[in-house]
């Protein structure tokens, strides 16, 4: 199949905030404008727009993408909305890659936006309908259940303790102290995390990412355009996505098969054969502390059940052998559902160009992987980016 090479040439994001003054349109506008300004591309040079944003129930605005399109640069342009829960932030970039790699368009703006503060008193109520209306909703479940159930299964299967999991919160919130857009950067100890309120055992409050308002955007370009516009393009080397069954109670939750499948799809495309050796920096999805470890294993960056040990050994620290979530992640920067994954891609972009400031990982990383996850513990979305042009 003939495919063109595609590079990320710009990135931008708003602060991630508990509640923003800005409307959804304004948040999108700020992120897109920031991404375009970072490489001086004008909106009229953008061929198409891809948007990711959560279901209309969260904002109470029907046909939300059409409502948002003005803020995305979508006025009178080819426009695509996509959504796979939290997986959206990386998925939208993968779908925009398809638009450009296919030869259909030369440039694309991808923006993901979320305003979770709108739904009162808490977006939990909007989440209720993710559960099967007949077999699950009568039990009045909430979103904490599925995370707690998955964490219990993961811990039980591999003999992992809450202390080992708490280390993820400590690392990511500390990393976030160096991210000026972060909502919840903090200096914590494992004891602090375990002293925090038990929401749904084994999940403690400081293991849970916040709800947030925010938007993040990247600009994609074909090789020809990238060459003209920047001397530091970051190439999209591989994309992958995979959806598992919605019958989540029929699955073993200890290991995310769908993340593994999405990862190999991206690695194969990128020519990566030994991910642990060939990936220099990873941004796995961390809505809850244990999920970073769970996902690292799905991403083939740690053997099953072993991610906690590697974390304890310092392998995943910013100056470790494989820095993980140097951005500070969802736990530290914030979690506006669709935008969080794109924030991770922005981070890889800045890290691979040496522009991450105080968060910069040492050693001139050449290749990174970003992964997001969502729906009813169902979807894995993966993008591999690097400084080397794909063959």
């Amino acid at each position, binding site marked *: 199949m003939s495919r063109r090479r595609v590079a990320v040439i710009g990135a931008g994001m708003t*602060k991630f905030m*508990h509640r*923003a003054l800005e409307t959804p349109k304004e948040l999108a506008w700020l992120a897109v404008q*920031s991404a375009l300004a970072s490489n001086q591309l004008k909106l009229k040079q953008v061929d198409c727009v891809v948007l990711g944003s959560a279901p209309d129930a969260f904002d109470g605005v029907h046909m939300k993408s059409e409502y948002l399109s003005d803020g995305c640069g979508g006025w009178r342009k080819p426009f695509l909305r996509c959504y796979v829960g939290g997986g959206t932030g990386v998925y939208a970039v993968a779908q925009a890659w398809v638009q450009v790699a296919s030869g259909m368009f030369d440039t694309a703006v991808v923006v993901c936006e979320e305003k979770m503060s709108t739904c009162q008193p808490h977006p*939990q109520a909007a989440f209720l309908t993710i559960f099967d209306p007949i077999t699950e909703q009568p*039990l009045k479940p*909430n979103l904490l259940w599925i995370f707690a159930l998955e964490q219990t299964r993961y811990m039980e299967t591999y003999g992992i303790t809450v202390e080992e999991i708490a280390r993820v919160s400590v690392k990511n919130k500390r990393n976030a102290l160096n991210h000026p857009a972060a909502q919840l950067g903090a200096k914590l100890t494992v004891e602090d995390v375990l002293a925090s309120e038990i929401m749904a055992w084994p999940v403690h409050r400081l293991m849970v990412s916040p709800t947030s308002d925010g938007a993040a955007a990247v600009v994609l370009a074909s090789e020809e355009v990238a060459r003209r516009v920047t001397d530091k393009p970051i190439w999209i080397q591989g994309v992958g996505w995979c959806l598992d069954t919605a019958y989540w109670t*029929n699955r073993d939750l200890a290991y995310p098969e769908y993340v593994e499948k999405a990862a190999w799809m991206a690695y194969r495309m990128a020519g990566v054969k030994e991910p642990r050796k060939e990936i220099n920096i990873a941004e796995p999805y961390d809505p809850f502390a244990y999920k970073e470890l769970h996902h690292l294993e799905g991403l083939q960056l740690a053997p099953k059940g072993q991610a906690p040990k590697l974390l304890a050994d310092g392998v995943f620290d910013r100056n470790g052998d494989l820095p993980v979530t140097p951005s500070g992640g969802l736990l530290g920067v914030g979690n506006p559902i669709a935008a969080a994954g794109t924030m991770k891609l922005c981070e890889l972009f800045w890290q691979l160009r040496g522009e991450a400031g105080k968060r910069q990982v040492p050693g001139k990383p050449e290749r990174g992987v970003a992964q997001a996850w969502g729906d009813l513990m169902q979807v894995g979305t993966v993008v591999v980016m690097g400084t080397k042009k794909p063959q």
Partner: protein
Amino acid sequence: MSDKYPGTPLDKGELKRGKIFMTSYVPKLRYCWDTGEAIGRYLEELRNGRLIARSCNGCQRIMIPPRMFCERCFRPTDEWVYVKDTGRILTFSLCYVTWEVRRLKQPQIPAVIEIDGASPGMGILHLVKKAPLKQVRVGMPVRAVWRTPSQRRGSVTDISYWEPDSLNKEVG
């Protein structure tokens, strides 16, 4: 450095003091969901005090909740299979927060319960009660506690909850 990241965080105090304009809307949405043939039968059997599953000859799974097509083989499922109302906890949580974000003194115990008679790992979501918190564990045998026949309506809540089953042997 911060002006690279636009956005205006709002202060909770400003909101309380009415310094920010806001409008609100409460939607009125009522849904009436069709059960389909498989879940229709599932609910009917629940009202009769029984759990029923569906088998697929392609992958040899006995599936609960039942379904008219197998999502893996992508073919119609084959037969109805009654399964037991006993099982084992595959995973659980002790949840102190409700979906309305209310705090609970006594936690709810949601669990995924592997059902005896269905395929291994084939679980359903339900609630565990009457179990001392320190004893709840993965692998714990449990059995359904049913509402009385006159209370049952054809709903997953016709099983009131699941309780520890001392009669059933724990799988190691």
